[in-house]
């Protein structure tokens, strides 16, 4: 073996090691080539982009109208799959009895009322919602940083993903980089008022480094997991789990 061969062999095995290390972090593809492309985008964006950079924040004048394009109103029995009797009752009482459950890989699993959450901190941001369909909308969101909630619940070192479930039976999960991103908040206020019912009342996720459909509305439950979970499930229904693109 000459020197060139030795260097090549070394580089190849280093590359193979790196690759297998990366692949362990990637979401499952179920052998679908499109999902492999999604994973390539996810891993590349995670390794080439700054994970702390903030998404563009706008001025009050930039705020636009905001369409609601979800899977249905959880308070309306007519919207078959999204309907939740619990949610309908909570809404009737103006969400006074609402609590958010935080459980999984946390030292102190518990339920938070909106007032409990407001005590953990506040962040106000005017950001752009980017829908996979092609449209976008700008709004001002006020909420508690998800990182503050996770820290308060005593997130454990084993934690890898945060799964968020809505009353409309919609769910999404994000990795720790997005969960602890400064602009990732649980919003309770939109454009200076309580979030209008169809925009995700009383609490919704804002994750500004990903597309609109990651921003779970009508939040009910947060589960911190130590392995990849796809609550939606995005991947099995043919959608990309990571939507930073």
């Amino acid at each position, binding site marked *: 073996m000459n020197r060139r061969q030795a260097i090549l062999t070394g580089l190849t095995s280093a590359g193979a090691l790196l690759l297998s290390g990366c692949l362990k972090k990637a979401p499952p593809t179920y052998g679908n080539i499109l999902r492999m*492309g999604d994973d390539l985008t996810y891993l590349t964006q995670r390794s080439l982009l700054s994970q702390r950079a903030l998404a563009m924040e706008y001025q009050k004048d930039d705020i636009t109208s905001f369409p609601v394009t979800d899977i249905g109103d959880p308070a309306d029995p007519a919207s078959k799959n999204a309907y939740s009797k619990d949610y309908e009752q909570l809404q009737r009482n103006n969400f006074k009895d609402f609590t958010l459950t935080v459980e999984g890989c946390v030292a102190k699993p518990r339920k938070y009322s909106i007032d409990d959450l407001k005590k953990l901190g506040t962040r106000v941001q005017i950001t752009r919602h980017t829908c996979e369909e092609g449209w976008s909308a700008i709004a001002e969101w006020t909420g508690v940083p998800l990182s503050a909630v996770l820290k308060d619940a005593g997130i454990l070192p084993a934690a890898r993903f945060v799964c968020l479930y809505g009353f409309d039976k919609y769910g999404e999960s994000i990795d720790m980089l997005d969960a602890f991103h400064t602009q990732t908040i649980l919003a309770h206020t939109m454009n200076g008022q309580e979030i209008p019912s169809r925009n995700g009342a009383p609490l919704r996720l804002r994750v500004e480094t990903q597309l609109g459909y990651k921003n779970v509305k009508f939040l009910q439950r947060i589960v911190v997991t130590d392995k990849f979970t796809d609550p939606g499930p995005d991947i099995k229904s043919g959608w990309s789990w990571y939507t930073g693109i």
Partner: protein
Amino acid sequence: MIKSQSPKTEAISHKRWVKGAHFIITLSFLALMVSGYIILMSHPRLYWGKAGNDLTPALFELPISRNYHHNGWDKSIPFKNLNGRQVTAARTFEIFNENGWGRSTHFLAAWFLVITGIVYFVSGFFSGHFRYNLTPRRREFSLKLLWQDFTAHFHRQTHYTGKYGLVQKITYLLVIFFLFPVVILTGFTMSPAITASYPFLLKMFFGHQSARTIHFFAAVLLLLFLLVHVVMIIRSGFKRNLWAITFGK
């Protein structure tokens, strides 16, 4: 024009990497066109500025799916704490949306295009391909020559020399150094994660929706190029040209 020559002897000689890159880029470009059209169908409205949606005015709207002018919206509710006339409204219309595979196909094809494009760029510079084959010669810098070559394309006077013509060179340079970079960068500008790291993109293209509109027009120009390119290939000897770009030496 003599048409019945043996393709092997008369054909222009392309380097192997040019042929390889041309093949991969052609396939990914076709996949990008189809998936791009599918994506556009789910929201066939284009805007100018930072943001735009069905509740804000459009620049124009394309009649390319049932989503065109669907008007399926609940009543508008104003945001009471804003000074403007911003509203929210829920959609009641089930739209055409095949973006699950449409978007992922688009990005997968874009990966092939971008990686091959980088290889092509680097090789093009270092091999002298751009300098010798695509850059017009000094004696070609003449509006008269440009006009003559341009009008010749309409008169079936183009003759096969084994070298690129003046209009051909300029067109290829515009496609390689202007249209492809613009279409790729405006694509990046629509990504929330990329623009968080590189916010200058949003400034450079006047906002998220402007970038989307520029992306659309750049794609239309690229498609137009493809059509003219194919017509010219057919007119200047389809068999010979196709042979040259796939197997030829």
